[in-house]
């Protein structure tokens, strides 16, 4: 196989799998936070900030994979 084909496939698979993992983890974090807000609506403000921190930290791992995918993709 030529080099450009392998690099293209690698870039596509990188972003695909990291998006799957990232979406699953963010769904778990958001669902637990929403459940906490549903049990105790007065605590919504105190739960919001840590939920946002958690979502952004999980998303940053997906962003690292996106940056790598952009670095290794071959110029078409």
């Amino acid at each position, binding site marked *: 196989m030529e080099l450009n084909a392998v690099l293209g496939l690698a870039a596509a698979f990188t972003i695909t799998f990291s998006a799957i993992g990232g979406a699953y983890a963010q769904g778990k974090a958001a669902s637990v936070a929403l459940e906490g807000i549903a049990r105790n609506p007065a605590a919504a403000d105190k739960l919001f*900030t840590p939920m946002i921190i958690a979502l*952004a930290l999980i998303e*940053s791992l997906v*962003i690292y994979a996106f*940056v790598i995918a952009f670095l290794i993709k071959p110029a078409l």
Partner: protein
Amino acid sequence: MMRLFTLALSLIVPSAALAAGYTHIGPIAAQLGVKEHILTFIFVSTLFVIAGLIYRAKVSGTKNPIIPDIGITFRNIFEAMGQFIYNLAVNIMGEESTKKYYTVIMFFFALIFANNCIGLIPGFLPPTENFNTTLALGTFVFIYYNYQGIRAQGLWGHIKHFMGPVWYLAILILPIELISHGVRPLSLGLRLKGNMEGDHLVLSIFSGLIPYIVPIPFYIIGLFVCFMQAFVFTLLTMVYISLATAQHDHDEEHAH
């Protein structure tokens, strides 16, 4: 007025030229010999300084500056933003730390938000799309919180933070702590850069496909992402400063 201005700007350049990579500041930057993201950053900063001077003039013109105006005015937007970040900082850092570090925190939030948002106007590239800008901002946060930590607790007290809770585990914990601290400016920079580049790419591709009604949801997502990335950057800065300058009078456990 602002809507008219944006509409006028977006009508002047046809969408085919925008899709091919034309920006308003590109030719000016090429003529002056500086890079485009630096010139856009200087442009946004100049706009911000002018906005700050206008705000100062409006505040000094009123008799009692504590009472806010009625409705949405120029002054109220800045004060709402300032109050939002102030409440957040009081929740994370406590009252007296907020008074010391509020200026720098508000500076980061406002600057990053403005720089992100200028990418939404067709014909401008956000300067935070370039890794150089975001790495510089991340490095500044790193230097700032280390400097404040050394100032608050002395050099030996700051280094003792890296050793962990007990002395006989220090030889294991010290490399982990050093690596995790060293990665912080990189992670701050990469997060901001990746989000801005991905968002601008999606926006430009969809605007290139169907330039008229369909990009509106992408603009809404773009505004949300701009605000959220500035918010997360500011939040992490506050957490790092509070971790570095935490006083050990009362028994609080360190979250590493």
